[in-house]
Structure formats: C-alpha cells, structure tokens
C-alpha cells in the first residue's frame, strides 16, 4: 500500500522488538468472536490514475458546463488562484488546531488577522475563529443570546434561509427554547408591526437575516430599536458576505452570525463552508468556538495563542458554551486570503458589480414577469414571479446549459410561481438575456427547442 512507509522486514523487526510473534497478538484484546475474518466488501485497491478517472466521470455527471443563477445561501464568486496555491502548502493543510503555540504561529497569526477583518467588515468588536457554517453559526448565536439574557425564546424572521430555520429548530427543541416566526411584508422585509407583537419579556433575541433569503436588505436600525426596547438582543445572520462591501453592516446588532463562503470558498455542493460569529467585547465570554489572542513570550516578543479556553468543552465539559471542537480553520484561511486580496477597495468594487448585474437582470425580468419586493433595497438576489411554473422554465433553461433560479414553492408556497434568482460578478449579460428570453417564452415552445436556437444562445 503506497501510503505505508514500512517494508515487510521493518514489520518483522518491530514485532520482534515488542516481543510479539505476529500481528494477531496485538489484536488479542478484541474478543475473537467479533474479529472480522474476511475482507471488507468495498471497492478493490485502485491506482491513482483510476481514482482520478472515477472522480472525473462523477464531475462530468455533475453539471460542470452550466451557467447558474442559483444563490440562496451558496454563491458562485471568482476565486483568486493564490488561495489554492497558499492553502495547499503542507504547513497549513496538514497541521491541526494550534494547541502548541510555539510551533503554530503561522496558523495563529492568520486566525488573528481573520478575526480582525471579520470584525472590521461586520462592524462588531470581536469575531471567533470560525463555526461549521452559516446555519449553525446563526443557531449558536441565538443560543448565546439566550445565555446572555437569561431569557428563553427567540423571535425569528420567516425570511431567514429556510434551512437555517430548520437547523435552529433542531437545536432548540430540547433546550426549552420557544421559537416564534414573524412574516415578511410586501417589501420583503420583516413585518415590524407583527414583530412588535411577537416580542415578549421572555424574548432573548430577534434573529433576522440581511440581506434576507429574498436578497432584501433589512432595516437594522429599526430592528435594533425594537429589540433593545424590550431588553432583547438583535442577532443578524449574513449569508452573502460580499454584500458587506457595499451594504452598511448591522453595527447596532449584538451578535452577527455569518456564512463566509462567498469569500473564496468553492460551492462544493454545499460544503465545507465557513461560519463565523462576531459580537461586542462585553459578550465574548459567552461566545462559542475558538478564539486567538495576542500576547508576548518570555522575551517580550509578540505572539499569538488560543485563549479564553475556559468557555470550551475540553475544560468546561457539560458547562461549556458549545460542544464545538474542530471548526473550519482551512476554510477560514481561504476566506482570510480572499479578504486580503480584495481588501478595502476591491471588496467594494466587487460588491458594486454584483449589485449592477442583479439590478440589470431584475429590470430585464420585470419586462415579462413580476419582480417581487421592489419596495426595499436589495443586493444580488431577487424574486421573480411568473405565470408558468418555474420548474418548467428551468427545464427549458437546462437545454441552454443554464440553471435557473430556485423555485420557492417548497419553502414559501404562498408566493406561488416564484423563484429566487442570483447574479454575481460571474454572471454574463448574455446569459441573463437568454434566461430572460427563455423564461418569457410561452410554455408550448418548451416541447422542442430548435437546434439553431441552442447554437445561438450558447455561442
């Protein structure tokens, strides 16, 4: 086996050194009746070339030539090539959690920079080293608010990513947390009147997403006022990190829970991604996850360490702020490099392109269909309501090698034939024009798309 660095002679020598007759001696502690006396029924050992071939085949079966208008919590943005060049260095790739600070300063300093940039972008004072993803970050942020306020219910917007809501409800069910969901208004924003009514003296936090699932930017100031007036916290989930380049961050929030996938992390069919929680300094001791802090060594030299570990499971066990241990460090490094590449000016320009592409697409769609929630500002996603079923439209688009917007029926049946469309800097005008045109075609045209037509749009 090519990963194993021992010859048969080495194995013999080791067995001899430890005084065992055969390898079976070492497995003697396992009761004989449980030992497996056959080969595992899994594929046979493959050559490297065979492995690559097998996965190439799977890659080809996975839509590798399509242009996509899908967003909804997972965004296609350009990934500068230096991200993979740098994270592929074995010193980053094959190290573990930096428990031994003296031989982990590279990882520790980069996390410290990550925490700094996330704080800067979210308008918060501190950020942790990462959480699993946006959905668990939002959930853990809500649980953090529960600990901080000593209250036991959460009021959440129905316009939060539906799968984030599902995760929250999975975690909440056994912690005695009451969840109240507040509907969205005609402008796509959370209904403030309903929100006021939903908040009680037991409300630990108001949890919203902004830009929300429909791409609509919420009014953070108004929301913070409403929450704080009742002694509740405002927790803001951000699923599209690029928005932070141009959208004012929720500075009035108490906790921000983010999905940083947009910052240089491949779509990867849903993971691994990079959640992160940011908050105010005064709340840091209730924060879940790893934190890196600056300190000095015995000679007064600057260095970095994992800190405030007394919050964590390996010290506090059942009284820890969370059970999280391994997080998403290497993905956080991708995010870190992406933020460094684009920086102060680039992130803004990048966000502006996203805004422009989505604005153009929404305007074009509105000529033949109804674009919902136009009463409030939005970033790079919008909801289009059509007369025909969006699944039919998407089937027609697939023939043009285009993946259309996400039909919302499954999550929001009340919106009827609506779909959530996303445009990023990667979306070409030609693809937008094609999608708009195909979506506007009468349904009968879908039966057979003329060959010439296909040629034209894929040119």
């Amino acid at each position, binding site marked *: 086996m090519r990963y194993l660095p021992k010859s048969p002679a080495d194995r013999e020598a080791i067995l001899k050194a430890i005084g065992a007759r055969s390898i079976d001696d070492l497995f003697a502690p396992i009761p004989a009746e449980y030992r497996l006396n056959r080969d595992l029924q899994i594929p046979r050992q493959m050559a490297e070339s065979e492995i690559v071939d097998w996965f190439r085949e799977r890659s080809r079966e996975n839509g590798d030539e399509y242009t996509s208008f899908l967003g909804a919590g997972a965004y296609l943005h350009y990934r500068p090539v230096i991200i993979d060049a740098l994270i592929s260095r074995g010193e980053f790739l094959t190290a573990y959690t930096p428990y031994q600070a003296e031989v982990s300063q590279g990882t520790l300093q980069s996390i410290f920079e990550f925490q700094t940039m996330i704080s800067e972008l979210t308008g918060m004072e501190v950020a942790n080293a990462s959480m699993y993803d946006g959905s668990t970050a939002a959930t853990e942020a809500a649980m953090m608010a529960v600990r901080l306020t000593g209250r036991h219910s959460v009021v959440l917007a129905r316009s939060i990513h539906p799968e984030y809501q599902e995760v929250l409800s999975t975690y909440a069910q056994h912690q005695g947390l009451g969840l109240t969901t507040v509907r969205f208004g005609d402008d796509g924003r959370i209904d403030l009147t309903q929100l006021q009514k939903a908040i009680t003296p037991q409300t630990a936090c108001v949890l919203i997403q902004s830009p929300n699932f429909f791409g609509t930017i919420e009014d953070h100031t108004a929301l913070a006022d409403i929450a704080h007036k009742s002694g509740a916290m405002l927790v803001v989930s951000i699923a599209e990190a690029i928005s932070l380049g141009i959208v004012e961050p929720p500075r009035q929030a108490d906790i921000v829970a983010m999905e940083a996938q947009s910052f240089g992390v491949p779509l990867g069919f849903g993971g691994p991604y990079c959640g992160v929680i940011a908050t105010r300094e005064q709340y840091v001791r209730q924060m879940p996850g790893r934190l890196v802090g600056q300190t000095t060594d015995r000679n007064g030299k600057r260095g970095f360490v994992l800190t405030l570990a007394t919050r964590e499971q390996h010290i506090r066990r*059942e009284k820890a702020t969370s059970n999280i241990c391994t997080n998403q460090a290497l993905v956080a490094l991708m995010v870190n490099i992406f933020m460094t590449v684009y920086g102060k000016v680039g992130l803004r320009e990048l966000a502006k392109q996203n805004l422009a592409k989505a604005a153009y697409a929404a305007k074009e769609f509105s000529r033949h269909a109804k674009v919902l929630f136009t009463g409030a500002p939005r970033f790079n996603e919008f909801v289009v309501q059509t007369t025909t079923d969006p699944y039919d439209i998407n089937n027609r688009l697939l023939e043009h090698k285009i993946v259309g917007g996400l039909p919302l029926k499954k999550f929001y049946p009340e919106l009827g034939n609506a779909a959530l469309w996303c445009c990023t800097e990667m979306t070409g005008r030609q693809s937008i024009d094609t999608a708009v045109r195909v979506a506007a075609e009468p349904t009968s045209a879908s039966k057979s798309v003329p060959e010439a037509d296909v040629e034209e749009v894929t040119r």
Partner: protein
Amino acid sequence: MKHVTRKATRHVSQNEGLVFEKSSAGKAAWKLPPLDVPEVDTEKALGASGRKDLGNMPEVSEIEIIRHFTRLSTWNYAIDLGMYPLGSCTMKYNPRVNEVVARLDGLANGHPYQPEKISQGALRILKTLSECLVEITGMDAITLQPAAGAHGELTGLLMVRAHHHSKGHPRKKILIPDSAHGTNPATAATVGYAVENLKSNSQGMVDTAALAAQMNEDVAALMLTNPNTLGVFEQEIHKIADIMHAKGGLLYMDGANMNALVGKVRPGDFGVDLMHLNLHKTFSTPHGGGGPGSGPVAVKQFLEPFLPKPVVISKPNGTLGFDYSRPQSVGRVRAFYGNFGMFVRALAYIFANGPDGLRQTTEDAVLNANYIRKGLEGSYDLPYSTPSMHEVVFSDKLQAKKGVRTMDIAKRLIDYGFHPYTTAFPLIVPGALMIEPTESESKEEMDLFIEAMRSIAEEVTEDAQLVLDAPHSTRVSRLDEVAAARKPILRWKPQ
C-alpha cells in the same frame, strides 16, 4: 544543547508582521473585468443601507500576500514535516490525490440546489461513500450531514432521544466514562440530557459492575469511545452492550479512535447501536489547522427513520435523488448536505486502500503504537499496563519529582524536531502524555522519536531547567497565556 538532535537543525526563518502593517492606500491584488451591464448608482439603489467605507481593511499587492502567507506557513509544524503524534487526533498522511479530485470542476463548483438530474455525480459519491462506511462500521444506515465529530455526537444523541421519545419516554441521562473527550458531556447537555460520570476500573476500562449499578430506565445511552482514550480496547464490550440493552438503553460509540479497528473488527458486530466517524482522522482528510472536519453517524436499522433529512435514495428510474419526506427525522443539523468536499477526499482514500490496504493500515497503526510503548517503557511511567491498540498513554510521574510536567516535556520535544503528543488528557491520568503515531510513521522516524523522548528523560535528571525553559529553538519562546486571557486582545487595531 547537551544532547544532539538528529531529527532537526535550526535554520533562518523570515520575520513577518501583521498584514495590516504592510497596507497602504493604492496597493491592490485584484482586477475585475469591465462591467457588461449598466453601472448602478449605489446611493440611489441602497439609500441609508449603503456602506460608506471599509474601515481598516488592508490594501496590499499579490506578491506581498504570497510572501505573507508563505512566511507564516513556515512557522507551523505539520504532518508533511514529520511525526505529529497528537493522541486521539490521528494525524496521518493526507494524500494529495484527494486534493486533486476534490477540485475537479463539477465537484468543486456544484451548487447544492442544482437540479438532481445534473447532480448525479455528487449523489453517486454520497451513496458510494455511505455504502463503504456502513460496511466498515458494520451498521445499517448512515448520515453524512454532521460537519465534525462533535456535531456527529449531537446528531447521534438527537437520534437517541427521538428513539426513546417514540417509545414514550425520552429518558433523562447519558452515562459517560471519566476518560471521555470533553465534547461528549458538552454534547449531552446541548441535547438536554444530564451527564452522569462512569468511573473507570483499575485497567482503565469501563467498570461493568458500576455500569450495571448505574444503569436504569432513566439512562438514555452510554457514550463510549472504543478503543478508549487510553488506547485500550474495552474487552468486556459485549457485557457493556448487554447491560445497556437489558434496560432499553443504547450504546453510542465515539469513533474518534476508529483507526485502531478498520478492517479488523466492526462496531456493529459488537453491540454498538450508533456511532460517529471522523473523516478527518480515520479517513485522511486534512486537519487544515483545525478543520474542516466531517462527522458521519452510522446507525442500526431501528434508528434509520430518525436520520437527519434529506437522505439519498435510488429512484424507480434508476437515478439518485434526495428524500425529504421523513416524518420521524430529527430534522436538519446543518444547511445543505454536509462537508461534501471531505466526502470526496475520504472516498478517494478508501479507493486508494481497498480492503487489504485498510486492514494493513490498521495493523501498522497498532504496531507503531506498541513500538513506541516498548521504546519508552522505563523512561516514562506507564499508568495502565493494559495492552495498547493505536495509541499509548504515559504519565509524567517520574519527571514530576524534578518539577517537570507533561507540558514541559512536550515543549522540549519541539526542540528535537517533533510536534508534541497530546498533553494532560485523558483526565484520569494525572500529567498524561498521550501518543498516537498512526500508520504513517516509518521505523526510522519512530526511532528518532524514541531517542528524543529518552534523551529528554535524561535531561530531566541532569538539567531540569533546560526542559522547563523549552522550547529554545522556536521563533517565540513560551507565550504568556494567562495575560492573553486576562486582558484579551482579539483583533488588531490601528495605533
């Protein structure tokens, strides 16, 4: 240095400040293509929601970024440099073909919501990996959704709870041995269970008499790591399972130490009802400085209805798809389907090994731990003489007489060119040195490690201060952790 280190030599490494300290206005590492749609007036589009500026975000060029992170990287120790014997972390070789296949276009750029008909490749990977892991664990069904080991534990206990709830009584407690990893009790609390500690016996194993005494109808499950954190296989595992099952309790196995078992014995065959795996340990996906992990949970048939949704199914037309219609499911534990990129890597590892390679891997892992044990016996105190599987736990009892503790020995090991072992865990061994070499170490590398550890033991008797002041060869000496926690500085701020 009194003793010669054969493994490592000091060499120059580059200094590097924080990236913010290199930033200045007008430098850039990015270039966007021309916009092919009309520009938007930001003020008009966003109004009060528009952002004015990005504060202290850096402005640097590409070459500076390359040098910045390359320099930082050289300050890390890593598996690629040498033995990284962190106990219970299974720091094995991370094959490079895994990285190549995970980056293939259709897999790296697949959107989780793209239609199933153009997701057959990803679905096939989910299904094939699931089948392999079910066979390896001897279980019946699996979810790949959990993002890490602790997340797998959470998912597992949610299923335990759902199972008991379906029987009319969710029960109240989880039994956890005192040798367990801290995530076990933390997880139990998250699922709303009380934690009851279970004392280990003199051999470091579950005391079955104590277990029988503590087991009752209020206990939902026992969370057992097997081999346990001492690297010891629970020889009375059948008895443990029987005690649990007799009173309707479940046996949950923490699969952190599965690297000792793959291809040799299957937890499903010795009475385990459900367990999680750590793909970043046993199945070679990179640890990446602390993740991403992946923590699939494998279960017996009776727990299958409770798996998180969605699950992958074969459709009547022969294609694969997701099934969301799962009325008894515990729900979702994460958005989308889990850390898919790690599934690709783990499956590539299984393909590279096959049944013979996986078995040989396990045998070598156990062989190596026993070689280390033999080499260090006499130099270090071995608190439990029970046979070791894939890792061995010593204590600093002999060195403590000179005022040298496990952390000091660990720091000195750095000077010898090794990453330290796991210190001060498991908690049942005061001053523990928990050593897991994995199968990835050659005899030569282990000989160097043994030599280094013996040399340190001699240094302790000859010149304890040398060890207490270690490391001597790193960029920074021991860091003030107390000051870091007392007055936390968690981000850079402009002067």
